[in-house]
């Protein structure tokens, strides 16, 4: 079974595991009891993971410094995989892929076509959800890499729900025939795969060249949904033109904008405290002036040393009242201060990925009149 399609309880030898080091450092590993996972914080023998439940924190003392270091070991999901995967191309991120899947109503009943495979990020999300995914990749090295990866992840195999095909769909269309470079294993008398897709996702520089070929592989007796993923607005324009020409309707282009927020704290600094601080500074300044004057006077007048204890206070100290910890390094959330919870958007936001152009098609708008009559008659006879 695929580690992506089955919930696993404990980590076993040979499992694909995602090691969470930090938010932007998640590494896939294949568990091997002879191996060690190295980070700059310390080394974690795979042995420590085996038998532990997924989600476990693995903690060590580092050799040299004897510091506490840890990682978390997670079971892969398509969304975590997207955060960790090796980029072969620009990838489709979860805000886009999740919207596309929801808008095209993806479920175990779905038969989906995806071109191109790219880094396989969206393929994993599709594979988790749909009945079958037909993925196409035109770039030979990327095709081979994706095929190997999908096999390793248990997505491509007999009984599995992903088929990947090496193909320039813009030139050669979507039909998968015996002899093509594809992961599909043809049966004895099988000459062509019956794709019958009801969901189509095109992540291609020129989707308009691929759209005319879709007729060969889409389902004819139901509503089919399509999404084109294009970075530039001019691509959208050309896509709309061709979609209209080929009988797709209900066109709508949308953008998805995703933002992530950090949870932070800001010190609550009251006006009263700020004023009191200034008052204190002023007081001390005046005291300092007077003290200096008195010292000067006493020096001149040669008075007794009775006052000395009072005067010995260092005159450099400006203020003792320091409600905001100025000058010190105050840690956010320090219990000695009051804090207000605030959100902060990530410093760099993904302000644009691509435009999503949706369209739909019901190829054969016909009904079986006889079947309707039969149903009506049978219900009347009841």
């Amino acid at each position, binding site marked *: 079974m695929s580690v992506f399609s089955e919930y696993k309880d404990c980590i076993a030898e040979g499992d694909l595991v995602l090691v969470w080091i930090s938010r932007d450092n998640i590494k896939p590993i294949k568990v091997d009891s002879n191996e060690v996972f190295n980070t700059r914080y310390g080394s974690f023998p795979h042995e420590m993971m085996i038998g532990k439940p997924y989600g476990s924190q693995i903690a060590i*003392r580092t050799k040299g410094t004897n510091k506490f270091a840890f990682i978390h070991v997670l079971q892969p999901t398509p*969304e975590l995989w997207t955060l960790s995967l090796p980029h072969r191309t620009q990838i489709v991120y979860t805000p886009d892929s*999740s919207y596309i*899947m929801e808008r095209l109503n993806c479920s175990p009943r779905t038969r989906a076509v995806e071109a191109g495979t790219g880094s396989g990020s969206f393929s994993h999300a599709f594979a988790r959800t749909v009945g079958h995914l037909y993925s196409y990749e035109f770039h030979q090295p990327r095709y081979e890499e994706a095929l190997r990866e999908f096999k390793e992840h248990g997505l491509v195999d007999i009984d599995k729900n992903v088929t990947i095909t090496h193909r320039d769909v813009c030139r050669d269309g979507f039909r998968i025939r015996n002899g093509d470079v594809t992961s599909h294993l043809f049966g004895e008398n099988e000459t062509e795969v019956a794709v019958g897709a009801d969901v189509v996702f095109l992540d291609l520089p020129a989707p308009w060249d691929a759209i005319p070929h879709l007729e060969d592989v889409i389902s004819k007796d139901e509503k089919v949904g399509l999404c084109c993923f294009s970075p530039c607005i001019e691509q959208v324009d050309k896509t709309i033109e061709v979609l209209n020409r080929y009988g797709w309707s209900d066109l709508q282009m949308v953008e998805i904008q995703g933002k992530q927020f950090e949870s932070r704290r800001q010190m609550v600094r009251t006006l009263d405290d700020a004023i009191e601080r200034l008052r204190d500074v002023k007081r001390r300044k005046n005291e300092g002036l007077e003290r200096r004057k008195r010292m000067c006077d006493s020096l001149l007048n040669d008075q007794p040393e009775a006052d000395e204890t009072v005067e010995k206070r260092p005159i450099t100290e400006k203020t003792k009242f320091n409600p905001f910890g100025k000058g010190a390094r105050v840690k956010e959330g320090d219990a000695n201060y009051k804090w207000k919870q605030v*959100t902060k958007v990530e410093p760099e936001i993904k302000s644009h990925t691509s435009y999503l152009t949706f369209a739909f098609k019901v190829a054969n708008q016909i009904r079986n009149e006889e079947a309707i009559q039969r149903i009506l008659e049978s219900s009347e006879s009841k």
Partner: protein
Amino acid sequence: MDPLKQLAFDQHVILRLPSGNRKIVQLKPNSSISLGKFGAFQVNDIVGYPLGTTFEIYYDGTHEPDLKNKNRTPIGKIRLMPRSENENAERNQSPLPAELANVLSSANNQQLVNLGNDVQGLSTAQIEALKNQTASGEEIIAKMIENHGTFDKKTVYSQEKYLKRKKQKFSKFFTAEYLSSSAMLQFLLEKGDVQRVMDMSQESLGMLLNLANIRSNGTYLCVDETGGLLVYFLLERMFGGANDTKAAGTIVVVHENEHPNLDLLKFSNYSDAFIKDHVKTVSLLDFFEPPSPREVEAAFTPLPKDQVWSLKAGKKNAYYRRLKWYNNQRQIISLAAETEYDALVVASTLHLPQLVQRLSASVHGSRPVVCYSQFKETLLELAHALYDDLRFLAPSILEIRCRPYQTVRGKLHPLMTMHGGGGYLLWAHRVIPAAEPAAT
């Protein structure tokens, strides 16, 4: 007929009207459905066509006037909408709708002086008469353009705006769509039930389903204050509307009131039996203070079947009552104390830190915790609480917004106004903290 592909009898479907509004209807055999100013039609006339088909309602003058109720919309006939009309955008290169092809237009509105309704040559009475005759929406609009005093003084842009407005007013067509969870959400939002659905949006829910890794064969713990909408989203993702699925998968709904509220599921096309199999409910009290297994087992012991059969009628009834109680108690114990869930999904207005932290005790390691809230501030409070709790990995607050465009060639731009809101998500993973290893 496959009710997931074709319009089927007794199915709930959602109709899209020319105004852009939606309406949920049930396709009862031999009944009719009225769409008000957009006409009325016989259910039997549309059943069997693919879901997503657009139909036009037309009147050929043969319909019987309703003598009892003159205001009642007469039932028209149905034909398939010709495809060229059945589109938001134009098919051909020219961005000009057919209706405007033979009409003069101005380069700008410079000569146009606003005279209100006076420029429309047809009186309201004349338009009403047209409507009651055989005239289709298109014919009425064509007549109105013909009789419009200053139509040629308008720019093409203004002419198109006029045309669109009139089409929305006089066209009689509708599209019958599958009632997906997103369509139900859209319907409720348009209906004004924004608070009821906690201001959710399709994009936030789509993100929630993916982040929570929802799929068939999972067992999910869920708090749903929307009356079943969130549960419907989960069901659709898990089973795709199919009653005959072989897939396993369970949603356990924890509810705040004595009885759960999943009313919206009655519009779904899942059978009662299917829902009973795949959706379990348990109150917060029962979940956090389940009966003790020992006491339950002490109170009742199921009998072997043959012994039950031999019971007398009165006793048999009492036995079955007790058995039902026993099974119910067993189920509560199982859901509350013996299940490690594959995700926690929350949409609740309860104070989230307490709720999420305590429910998460039942979530398996490495599984996602996803919480929807209408307000970012409540998730912020939750995020800080989860940060301080070693059982949660990397809580993040997310905002997802969809921005739809007017998708017409030559006039592409984002919609000018949109419904605000859409809520926020918190995403974290349940993890299992390790004891700090002893210093070596």
